[in-house]
């Protein structure tokens, strides 16, 4: 895969992203004793208007990747380009105009809203911060439009977050993210704290907004069925690396990486008729610590198909003819020639 080739329709490009955190010891934490490679060589790009999902279990690096894209973290290495502009080393001042175009929706609607602010002010704050609230009438009109857009009633404007249920609060969080008319929204587990019946409302809202406003989503989630429902393309992460990346249907209908296969099989389907004769491929053990990842392929200690050299050499992420990328020696030996 050519790294420097600029795809004309790509809104976000992440190339060989590495985010390493130092592990320190001693008084004042001066001595670095180890490095946590939270994200270790991740590349992907987002086409304008699509939903691209990063899935994986705790510690896989999906949230760290999201925070790097938001530039709330500075990458250790690699390159992040937004709309053709390299933002990898942007200072906070340089990020300001970019931030208008990249916004974030958070997981927990209970702790991500300021409890002392009225709903209308929470939603309108980004406009004020970015100097886009020209005058009071304009500001009020904007806030009212945003509330309407996400399905909040006008009479809710002067209420406080604690008066709202989880689903309504997430609507507030989404309205706030939309205030600056962003092009890309990074959604970090946006529905996982919500009840099932409310989750469906918010999923529909995300999809309606995307159609209406032409939004691009970088979607971070661990819920496989939500990801399948919303995504155009999916990347599966494990211990800081992408192990498989493909179009949604290819990934869900014919997963190639043993980890993806195990992950999909671990998710129970809400239908006892399917569950009763579905083969269960339980993987053993738990995700190892990122501080000390296994050698070679990081999945090899838990992999049912592991071969001798899996513990020695790390496989490359390679595409098959359909553009389905897999990082696994099972396929590399056949297709790598």
């Amino acid at each position, binding site marked *: 895969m050519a790294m420097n080739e600029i795809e004309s329709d790509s809104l976000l490009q992440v190339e060989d992203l590495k985010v390493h955190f130092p592990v320190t010891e001693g008084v004042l934490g001066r001595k670095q004793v180890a490095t946590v490679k939270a994200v270790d060589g991740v590349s992907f790009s987002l086409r304008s208007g699509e939903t691209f999902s990063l899935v994986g279990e705790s510690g896989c690096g999906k949230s760290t990747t999201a925070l790097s894209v938001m530039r709330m973290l500075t990458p250790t290495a690699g390159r992040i380009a937004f709309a053709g502009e390299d933002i990898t080393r942007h200072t906070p001042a340089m990020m300001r105009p970019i931030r208008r175009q990249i916004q974030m929706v958070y997981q927990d609607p209970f702790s991500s809203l300021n409890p002392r602010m009225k709903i209308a002010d929470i939603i309108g704050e980004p406009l004020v911060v970015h100097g886009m609230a020209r005058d009071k009438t304009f500001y009020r009109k904007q806030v009212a439009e945003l509330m309407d857009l996400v399905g909040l009633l006008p009479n809710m404007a002067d209420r406080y977050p604690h008066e709202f249920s989880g689903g309504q609060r997430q609507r507030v969080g989404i309205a706030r993210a939309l205030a600056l008319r962003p092009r890309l929204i990074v959604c970090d587990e946006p529905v996982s704290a919500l009840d*099932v019946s409310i989750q469906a409302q918010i999923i529909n809202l995300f999809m309606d907004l995307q159609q209406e406003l032409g939004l691009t989503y970088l979607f971070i989630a661990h819920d496989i069925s939500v990801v399948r429902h919303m995504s155009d393309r999916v990347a599966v992460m494990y211990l800081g690396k992408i192990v498989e990346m493909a179009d949604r249907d290819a990934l869900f209908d014919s997963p190639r990486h043993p980890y993806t296969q195990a992950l*999909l099989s671990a998710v129970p389907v809400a239908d006892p008729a399917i569950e009763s004769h579905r083969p269960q491929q339980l993987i053993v053990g738990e*995700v190892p610590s990122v501080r000390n990842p296994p050698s070679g392929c990081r999945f090899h200690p838990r992999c049912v198909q592991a071969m001798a050299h899996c513990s020695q050499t790390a496989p490359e992420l390679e595409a098959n003819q359909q553009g389905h990328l897999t990082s696994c020696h099972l396929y590399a030996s056949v297709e790598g020639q």
Partner: protein
Amino acid sequence: MSNPNLLEVEDLSVSFRTDRGWVRAVDSVNLHVAPGETLAIVGESGSGKSVTALSILRLLGDSGQVDRGRILFDGSDLLELDDAGIRKIRGDRIAMIFQEPMSSLNPVLTIGKQVAEPIQLHRGLPWSVALEHATELLKKVAIPDAEHRLGDYPHLFSGGMRQRVMIAMALACDPRLIIADEPTTALDVTVQAQILALLKDLTRETNSALILITHDLGVVARYADRVAVMYGGRIVESAPAGELYSNPQHPYTRGLMNSIPGLDGSPQSRLITIEGQPPDLANLPPGCAFAPRCPHASNVCHDQKPALEQIAEHHLRACHGYE
């Protein structure tokens, strides 16, 4: 007539004291579970599923009280027992596994101490024997190198391992009934699958009953024999799992089934949602709690609470009916 049920909850109502006065969290709930059976109680936040479970073990705390009802376990009413009596049952005959393995283990006691303690307490065994039992239990729940981990503190264990320890503690005295309240919600999905499979195998092995409290309809489909769906403090539908999924009869159950994006359904289609917000228990409507969100609600639904009635064999529904 011999009673096949291990636990029978009859007409249970529970209230909590709040800033806004007494709020009824559980209203006229009837449940039963037989040895070897897995009953799932499904519902969203505030539906009363956890309060029902806590009532069984009389763990409501100072702000909660049972207003009426009976909880028959092995023929005797748990609500009639004095404190010493219920303590004998708790952790011995009935064990509970909580959602948060991080906060339900004591951080300053070793794992060995925490697992062995109930055995010593309830069985009156010497400490060394209790510790041996604890080792066996930790092996049974597949904690690697169990002998050498007895002296470790909880923070040295991962989330999945801590939940295994919780299960080991729950199994310590061979309970007849295990109540698991969202046992895997805090865990990764591959670990969830391991833990639930373990729990299911162990209960099957000992022919004990399992009450699984969850909001996850996928987990229910994979592990439950029978399901009770709760909404606004009441059971709105109960049926064998297969029947409930293939033939849901309450509009709320139907709504729930529709609102999960399936792994088999067509992606990117609009999900059919249940409109509106979950009910406020302090301010429930006089009729059916689901009526404000129900697409089929008629006048009678807004005025009268529907009773839970049998509509087919083993299938109950609390609904005034609709076409």
